[in-house]
């Protein structure tokens, strides 16, 4: 057992876990945040995507101990109180989900993608960037629309702020 401490959605947390504990299990079981999902468990589907030190990673393919003392952001950390994050709002507006199982990973991947590309996101780039996230319901079309809309909105907000 090892004491693993990290900053999870802005809050300092700690838990004693086995060294073999995956980050996704630390988040779900030790910290009780079940928004991050386990889909394929083989690094393919992306339902478990979270951000570690600002970068999207698959939390089923990383030990909790590797994220020791890191800043970890999950889907629960995106909204500002009752106000949804622009990407969350865009997924609702554009119906970017059906069953919702892949949605937390899709949204965390989308936020990361928009952070890296800013407002320069076109449909082709979005589809390429979604290679590591699998959705079995939507055919991706509305997910791509939602990400494009959120990227445009966030980039316009940023321009207005400047």
């Amino acid at each position, binding site marked *: 057992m*090892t004491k693993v401490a990290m900053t999870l959605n802005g809050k300092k947390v700690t838990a004693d876990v*086995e*060294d*073999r504990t*995956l980050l996704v299990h630390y988040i779900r079981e030790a910290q009780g945040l079940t928004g991050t999902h386990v889909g394929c*468990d*083989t*690094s*393919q589907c*992306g339902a478990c*995507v979270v951000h570690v030190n600002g*970068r*999207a*990673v*698959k939390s089923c*393919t*990383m*030990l909790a*101990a*590797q994220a*020791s003392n890191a800043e970890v952001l999950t889907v629960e950390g995106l909204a500002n109180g009752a106000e949804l994050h622009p990407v969350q709002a865009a997924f609702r507006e554009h119906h970017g989900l059906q069953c919702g199982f892949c949605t937390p990973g899709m949204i965390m*991947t989308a936020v*990361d*993608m928009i952070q890296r590309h800013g407002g320069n996101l076109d449909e082709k780039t979005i589809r390429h*960037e979604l*290679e*590591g*996230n699998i959705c079995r319901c939507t055919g991706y079309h509305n997910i791509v629309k939602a990400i494009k809309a959120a990227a445009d909105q966030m980039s316009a907000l940023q321009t207005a702020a400047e």
Partner: protein
Amino acid sequence: MYETNYHRASSVEEAGKLFTGSEDAKYLGGGQTLIPTMKQRLAAPVDLVDLGGIDDLKGIAEDSGALRIGAGTTHYDVATSDVVKRLIPGLAHLAACIGDPAVRHMGTMGGSIANNDPAADYPSALVALGATVTTSTRELSAEEFFTGMFETALEEDEIVIAVSFPVPEKSAYSKYPNPASRYAMAGVFVAKTKDGSVRVAATGAGQDGVFRIAAMEQALAETWSADAVAGISVDAGDLLSDIHGTAEYRANLVTVMAKRAVAAAG
């Protein structure tokens, strides 16, 4: 996953001591192969020595006609580095084709080459560019380093420190990814060095991992054009055959990827 003991090393020396002090240890790079392998219980090291906290292993620098990339540098950092894009754009493109964005954020060059998966991308670049691998004890040419499928010249406790790539006149990589895994079904890296010699290396296709294609190298040294390699086939008898594709299919892919790589290099 079986039980394991996790250790985070803060220096190469400390990592080596942790490793040799264990009865059965493995080094952990970005973990994008090793963690899934452990989850499938195909690997069960008693001790895991994480190299991810060693700052000396990270970084990209131009160094007297060569590009030096620390073994702990992620695929994402290679793919987006202005220095890599300026000096060896083919290498930046290759890194951008590995796995998916989340995998590229974690996976490292050192981890990839130390594993020497026959379908990994980097081995083709190292061999075609004539790279030198610096380890904790010595320097090896890429061709000395890669010795066979999942096999390298590394001793058990030896650590890859950095890879140094001579800057070529031009180079490019073309890959046909497996549609599910994104590993190379066949990937070909072509490079023309500043002294005019040509090297061509293929990954994903060979039974013993990465290999050079001498006939293509000779043809391209005479005429640098996609047409020069269009009629050259590799022997299917030496290629992988599995549920994803037959050896004959891969042999055809190697020629097609070589043509595309030469065209991309310009």
